[in-house]
């Protein structure tokens, strides 16, 4: 069921906003913390509801109609996410509790294969969720972590790539787009370098996922992780996508019901993908909700959404550049970044700035954004981050700029 797509000119954030119940509950809310969590459209909330009210059952093993319905719903959710990622094979989609769950799953599966002296390449821009699982793996196996440095404007610096991607490199795990700088990672050279030494590439897609469907094969990566709650879906769900041949080689690091062919007290024989990597009752209703979010996103005129977000981001950057004492973190080129902007206001602590915003109904985030190594790189305690989504509009930006003016008056 394809809706008639409004053309780019007709894209109306006010209409979109009406689809999000949170703005009916909080009509004054200026929600600019979309990198932390996006809001949820009614379509998604209702899809979860409907599933719980009409099709709730455990999956895969029941043969009564309700169990078949629930199994089918879960199965279709997987298909929908495969479509969203552009994966031909839906069994390459492993549902997890979120991006963090996905990366921990991969790290623990890799732990069996990797040996002391093997290397994993990360970057200094990574979110703790794409750093700590590898630190734990490193402690467990003796695998060495290496780090791609950053350019002065916070992009991953590819100049040392060939020095850092050694013969011992087994995995390159970097973010698809940063939750602090907004910088979108340049993939071409990275993937070429990794594949030239047979290392796999994992992208942390937590921030990218909300910006519409992907073409995972064209991207050329091997693993991809994302979270439902950052793409207008429910909390408690996310996924790990992986190339079938690689996923099949992973020994299941976690055990439970529904993932086995045969079990004795001594050992088990894992089932096929995707079940082998999804032990236990999965987040069924949340998968249905995430599929509804993906479907909702795919119905949108994403070109129009994109130009809307570029427009707002441009307005925001222009406005911020007018203030003395504001340092912007991240690429200056609008088209190398997502619609999120981190800033440092001289002599003002991010929390104090965020408080001034909060008092005016503006929701932004101040702090280290779970990226302490990056903060250290910039020599900052934290930043104040403004992150946009499609329901934001010019009045949100203008209110924010006005609040900064007031903050400078009050705080400095």
């Amino acid at each position, binding site marked *: 069921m394809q809706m008639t797509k409004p053309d780019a000119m007709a894209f109306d954030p006010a209409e979109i906003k009406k689809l999000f119940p949170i703005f009916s509950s909080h009509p004054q809310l200026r929600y600019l913390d979309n990198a932390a969590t996006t809001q949820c459209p009614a379509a998604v909330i209702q899809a979860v509801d409907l599933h719980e009210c009409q099709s709730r059952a455990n999956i895969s093993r029941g*043969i009564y109609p309700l169990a078949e319905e629930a199994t089918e719903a879960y199965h279709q959710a997987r298909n929908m996410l495969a479509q969203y990622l552009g994966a031909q094979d839906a069994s390459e989609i492993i549902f997890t509790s979120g991006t963090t769950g996905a990366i921990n799953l991969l790290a623990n599966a890799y732990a069996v294969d990797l040996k002391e002296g093997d290397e994993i390449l990360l970057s200094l821009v990574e979110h703790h969720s794409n750093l700590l699982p590898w630190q734990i793996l490193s402690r467990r196996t003796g695998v060495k972590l290496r780090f791609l440095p950053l350019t002065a404007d916070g992009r991953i610096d590819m100049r040392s790539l060939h020095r850092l991607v050694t013969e011992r490199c087994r995995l390159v795990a970097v973010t698809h787009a940063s939750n602090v700088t907004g910088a979108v990672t340049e993939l071409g050279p990275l993937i070429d370098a990794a594949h030239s030494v047979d290392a796999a590439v994992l992208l942390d897609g937590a921030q990218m996922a909300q910006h519409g469907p992907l073409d995972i094969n064209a991207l050329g990566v091997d693993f991809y992780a994302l979270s439902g709650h950052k793409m207008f879906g429910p909390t408690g769900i996310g996924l790990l996508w992986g190339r079938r041949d690689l996923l099949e080689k992973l020994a299941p690091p976690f055990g439970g019901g529904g993932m086995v062919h045969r079990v004795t007290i001594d050992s088990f024989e894992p089932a096929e993908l995707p079940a082998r990597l999804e032990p236990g009752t999965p987040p069924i209703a949340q998968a249905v909700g995430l599929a509804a979010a993906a479907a909702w996103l795919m119905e949108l005129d994403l070109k129009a959404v994109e130009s809307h977000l570029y427009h707002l981001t441009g307005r925001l950057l222009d406005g911020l550049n007018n203030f003395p004492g504001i340092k912007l973190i991240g690429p200056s080129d609008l088209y190398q970044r997502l619609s999120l902007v981190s800033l440092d206001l001289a002599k003002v602590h991010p929390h104090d700035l965020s408080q001034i915003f909060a008092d005016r109904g503006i929701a932004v985030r101040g702090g280290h954004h779970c990226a302490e190594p990056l903060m250290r790189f910039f020599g900052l305690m934290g930043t104040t981050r403004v992150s946009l989504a499609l329901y934001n509009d010019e009045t949100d930006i203008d209110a924010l700029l006005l609040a900064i003016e007031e903050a400078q008056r009050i705080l400095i």
Partner: protein
Amino acid sequence: MALARDPIGNGQLEHPRARVQLDNPLCGDRVIIEVTWDDNGMLTELAHEVQGCALCRATASLIGRDTPGKQLTEIAIAQTELERLLKEGEEPTHHHWQGLSVFKPVHGHKSRYECVLLPFKALTQALEV
């Protein structure tokens, strides 16, 4: 039901050319197929042992009844026909496999497809067709 109750071809072969054991992970059912074929590609002998439900036993029985004497290439067709029957509800068209239509009532009961298919999967795996 008759097929399930009086299994045809139940047992073991003395000198099977191939033997495959297949499990249904969802219910723990198990099928063992032993089979022999000649150099002209004709299935000559077949035996099966089934620990499984009525549907699974019925397919095994049908295989025991209808596959000996058939060409291996025709058996590959049978599995395709059966899958289409289950998933789309389409009657088998190949004249050798009209008998498969006993499984028509299973169409729409997704959780049971694997029960019906398991013996066929074991067979085609044994034959490598």
